[in-house]
């Protein structure tokens, strides 16, 4: 029994503080609405520049990815290292369905979303069935991500290979205008936040928390571990596909680096670590801060990687719980982390047997 005790607490890097505070519905809706209102003002600053608006749209797309990854990893502890690949299934899938098969844009986005969702669900189902654990789930999904990258490069007659493909469909619509794409992506961000909030408040959210806190105890209490992990993966992967597909149409082209492991997954992990894994608003806060920093450091070129590497190390060593929980405990309020030892990684380790 002591072994499973360590195993359950071993993943406490994932432990989010916010999940434990029950918040009322009006409060949650108001928080999401306030976030939406604040982000809706961004085009007032950057709207006059085509480049900066593009950066902001990409930032929101990353916000979507981070929310989805947070749902899969933060809520159910499945380390999906194929965020970019699943978004790429959405992006490439929708582009191919619209341009080469000739489907309407909406239909191709929906089909590609469904495909991403099913692939994510399948990966999760396999991982849970074979009880792979955090690390091996990470390796299997990383293998899927790298296979996808090589597939895109390999079948260049369909995907355009290294250079990527322009997307012809939707060229004359609002999707290629300057400002409207921003609000389309913002709509997705708010939708995803709402879905995540809904899930957390429901029976499913209760099961998620039980699962993450102690898998064995959750199973004993009657939580169907397989089912809820796969639900989270289906929902999160669908979000990834939808965001990837929508972003591709606004960008007007797809290429491998838009969905690469180094360009997407690593960035999403940094964003989430920054904002706070397992929190509702952490992913979007992380995405906004990261996008701004990235734009400020653009002069540095390759050296930006050095900054991100250092950031990863600092985040995981010192600000383990992310900005939102850290800020909240600094500001006081009723959320004293010391009263919940099992969500503080440093403490959780000492509770394990030596």
């Amino acid at each position, binding site marked *: 029994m002591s*072994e499973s005790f*360590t*195993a359950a*607490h*071993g*993943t*406490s*890097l994932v432990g989010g503080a916010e999940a434990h505070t029950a918040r009322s519905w009006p409060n949650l809706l108001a928080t999401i609405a306030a976030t939406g209102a604040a982000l809706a003002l961004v085009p007032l600053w950057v709207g006059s520049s085509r480049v900066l608006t593009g950066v902001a749209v990409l930032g929101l797309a990353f916000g979507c990815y981070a929310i989805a990854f947070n749902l899969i990893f933060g809520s159910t502890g499945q*380390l999906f290292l194929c965020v970019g690949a699943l978004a790429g299934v959405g992006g490439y899938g929708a582009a191919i369905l619209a341009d080469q098969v000739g489907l309407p844009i909406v239909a191709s986005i929906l089909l590609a979303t469904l495909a991403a969702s099913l692939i994510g669900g399948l990966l999760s189902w*396999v991982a849970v069935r*074979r*009880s*792979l*654990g*955090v*690390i*091996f789930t*990470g*390796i*299997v999904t*990383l*293998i*899927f991500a*790298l*296979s996808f990258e*090589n*597939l895109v*490069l*390999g079948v260049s007659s369909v995907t355009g290979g290294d250079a990527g493909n322009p997307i012809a469909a939707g060229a004359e619509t609002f999707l290629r205008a300057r400002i409207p794409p921003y609000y389309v992506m913002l709509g997705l961000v708010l939708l995803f936040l709402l879905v995540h909030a809904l899930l957390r408040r429901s029976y499913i959210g209760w099961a998620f928390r039980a699962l993450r806190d102690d898998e064995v105890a959750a199973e004993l209490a009657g939580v169907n571990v397989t089912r809820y992990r796969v639900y989270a993966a289906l929902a999160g992967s669908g979000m990834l596909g939808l965001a990837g597909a929508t972003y591709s149409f606004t960008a007007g082209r797809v290429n491998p680096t838009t969905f690469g492991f*180094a360009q997407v997954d*690593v960035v999403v*992990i940094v964003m989430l*670590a920054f904002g706070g894994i397992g929190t509702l608003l952490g992913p979007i806060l992380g995405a906004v801060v990261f996008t701004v920093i990235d734009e400020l450091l653009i002069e540095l*070129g*390759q*050296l*930006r*990687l*050095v*900054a*991100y*590497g*250092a*950031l*990863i*190390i600092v985040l*995981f*060593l010192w600000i383990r719980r992310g900005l939102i929980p850290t800020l909240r405990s600094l500001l006081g309020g009723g959320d004293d982390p010391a009263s919940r030892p099992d969500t503080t*990684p440093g403490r*959780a*380790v000492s509770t*394990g047997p030596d």
Partner: protein
Amino acid sequence: MTASILDGIVLGLQFGVLASGLTLVYGLGGVLNLAYGQMAVISALVVLLTMDAGVPAVPAALLGLLAGGLLGWLFDATILRPVYRRKGEARVLLSLLLTLGVAFIVDGYLNWAYPLRGLSLRIGGDAVEILGVRMRMGSLAASGITLVVLAVLFYVFRYTRLGRAIRSVIENEQGAKLVGIDPPQMLRLILILSGVLAAVVAVTRSMVAPVNVQAGFSLTVLGLIVTVVGGLGSITGAFLAGLVLGIINSIAAAYIGTFLSLIILLVAAGFTILIRPAGLLGVRE
């Protein structure tokens, strides 16, 4: 076909050495070093810069091995310290994230400071005919070195006191402590060894094809795939998996194409995990 198989063996021996370094560190310390490929790249760069300064290839290569060992020691002394304070999955996860950070720092700096540089060692001499296939001296020298390294590893781990001590820690850390073995010291040794092995890969690889400064991530991934297929913590597994995957990769590359051959490697690794995960995962019961 024979040519592809022979190329595959040359490649596979290097895969074996590459994976040995990763698998030992994981088996012994529960540490997944995602900056492993960067260790190899830094060692290659040390060799390159030393040779630029006019030093002959052999002392430069030895200096590269020394640099690899120093890197391993440095990892053990700095970035892995907070990792060692954790246990189980939290330890693997933290080691993975922190070394990923290190990998980014190294990649970013090297791409900025030495863009497009790469090490390639030219071994002179005429091509030799083996089984009807003309093999370049570079490939033969590389295979010779990797074979010797693997043989030494086998001997040390199987027959020496040190090797037995290390294997006992992999098997049961508590038990090893009780009979007077110091696990942290073994871990430091293994990290130094893994750095040297990374450098060996860099040097031997550069005799066959250039090792570029951007190669770090793909080296790590290759090592990870071979490690996973071979079984964590096992040198024999790493050696066999390296050979098998090297041959598969060469044949697939010759007949199907480079990108798709990598997919075949990846799929092979994926299936191995799914078919026998318990045999591959050292820390799980």
